[in-house]
């Protein structure tokens, strides 16, 4: 998969407008549950960087992402977004399943977030479609797309409002290994260009080390931070970066913490 983009993206300037995400004394207890799912969690995720949240399935990492998105309210503590206030469309969420509207074409699915704010910006839709390489499929219905293409539409829809906070809930989880690898490149390039703060939930440590600047291993009940590791080097990294000795060492260390 070839992706056109400018070469170096260390700390893009748009990072200045992206928020840092800070969980402060965060607690969450489901109604009727004996023990809290999250109890007094403190964690900071840097502005304009990609952070990966890794953990066993069912540990509560997706719930943490929903809290950051404001889709769930914590029962204790708070989620602080430190930086300029987010406008409408300032945050975007990519679900594990693409969640496209079956009756809308690719293009109309991508423009939905703008439409919901009463905006019409064909240029933004065009740019988002082009970022994921789907300009040619704009008039198709989701039914005609492969799983990987649907996921790309879902990403384009998240990018179209130029969010400063991008939340991804296992976006590659339901895809086969080959599609997943080809999408890594598309995703990494698309979000690197925009300099947003990215929080990505995954259960794949190798994927986390390849795509993120910071990997956070979560686990336990209540949920706690098991390990935090910063991954040096510019993004997006080529797929071969996963075989670099430093990457392999990072994966080993993080797996030990899992």
């Amino acid at each position: 998969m070839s992706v056109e983009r400018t070469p170096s993206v260390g700390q893009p300037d748009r990072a200045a407008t992206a928020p840092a995400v800070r969980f402060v004394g965060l607690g969450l207890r489901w109604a009727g549950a004996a023990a809290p799912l999250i109890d007094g969690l403190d964690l900071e995720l840097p502005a304009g960087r990609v952070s990966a949240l890794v953990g066993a399935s069912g540990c509560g990492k997706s719930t943490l992402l929903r809290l950051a998105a404001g889709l769930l309210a914590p029962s204790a503590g708070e989620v602080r977004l430190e930086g300029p206030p987010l406008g409408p469309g300032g945050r975007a969420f990519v679900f594990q399943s693409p969640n496209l509207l079956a009756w809308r074409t690719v293009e109309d699915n991508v423009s939905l977030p703008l439409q919901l704010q009463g905006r019409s910006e064909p240029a933004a839709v065009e740019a988002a479609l082009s970022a994921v390489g789907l300009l040619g499929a704009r008039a198709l219905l989701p039914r005609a797309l492969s799983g990987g293409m649907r996921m790309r539409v879902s990403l384009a829809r998240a990018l179209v409002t130029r969010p400063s906070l991008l939340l991804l809930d296992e976006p590659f989880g339901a895809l086969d290994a080959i599609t997943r690898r080809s999408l890594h490149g598309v995703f990494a390039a698309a979000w690197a260009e925009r300099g947003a703060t990215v929080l990505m939930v995954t259960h794949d440590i190798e994927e986390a080390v390849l795509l993120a600047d910071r990997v956070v291993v979560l686990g336990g009940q209540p949920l706690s931070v098991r390990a935090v590791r910063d991954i040096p080097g510019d993004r997006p990294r080529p797929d071969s970066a996963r075989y670099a000795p430093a990457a392999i060492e990072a994966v080993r260390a993080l797996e030990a913490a899992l």
Partner: protein
Amino acid sequence: MSGTPARSMALPAAVAVGVLVAWAGLASRLPEVLLPGPISVAHAVVDRWELLGRSALSTAGSAGLGLLIGSAVGLGLGVGFLWSRALELAVYPYALLLQTLPVVAVAPLLVVWLGYGAPVAVASAALVSFFPMLTAAHVGLLGVDPEQVELFRLYGASRLQELRWLRAPSALPAVFAGLRTAAGLSVIGAIVGEFVGSNGEPPSLGYLVLRSARSADTALTFAAVIAAACLAGVVYWAARTAEARLIGPWHPGQGGGRA
């Protein structure tokens, strides 16, 4: 859909021919009043073409108007239930109760309230088509993917936007399934209303069936029954066509079939 087009035409046609032959054979052994043969029924259709046509049109009008009213109230109440849990709790049990009420038993009451004439047929058609539409709307509007609702909430969508761009389109398959049921029922409802509440002005299929059966004009009864069946077929076909046009391109339930 299974089989070749030729096969899917030939098989029903063979059944039709078989039924006609059996019918003619049986009718030749029985008095005309009990069972008129296909030929005399065809004669009745040709001879009373104008009366049959006017009656069918009037019944179609009553069924159509009743379906429209029943659907509007059913769909409207479905949206009401979506937006107000209190309304749903307060009204839904009675809507369920209304459905168990046989329209045949209520029709005489409608005559008391509305007098003789087409309004009874319209009201009775509306009564029977209301419930399937309400259930369809209720199930369809609430049965939305919760993550898609979250997506709309994330972008601060209003309730109206959520209804218009998410819930209404995603409810369409259920609503059309309800419409197919309601459309068939509305013809039955109209004819029941005409049995009880029609004085022959305007002429209607329900009235024609009753009057011809009473005056031992059984061939005309058959003709009217066939006209009623055709009417129900046309209504069903129209609902099916609208469904295929509107949701066919994206709804996977369309054009499926057995392996």
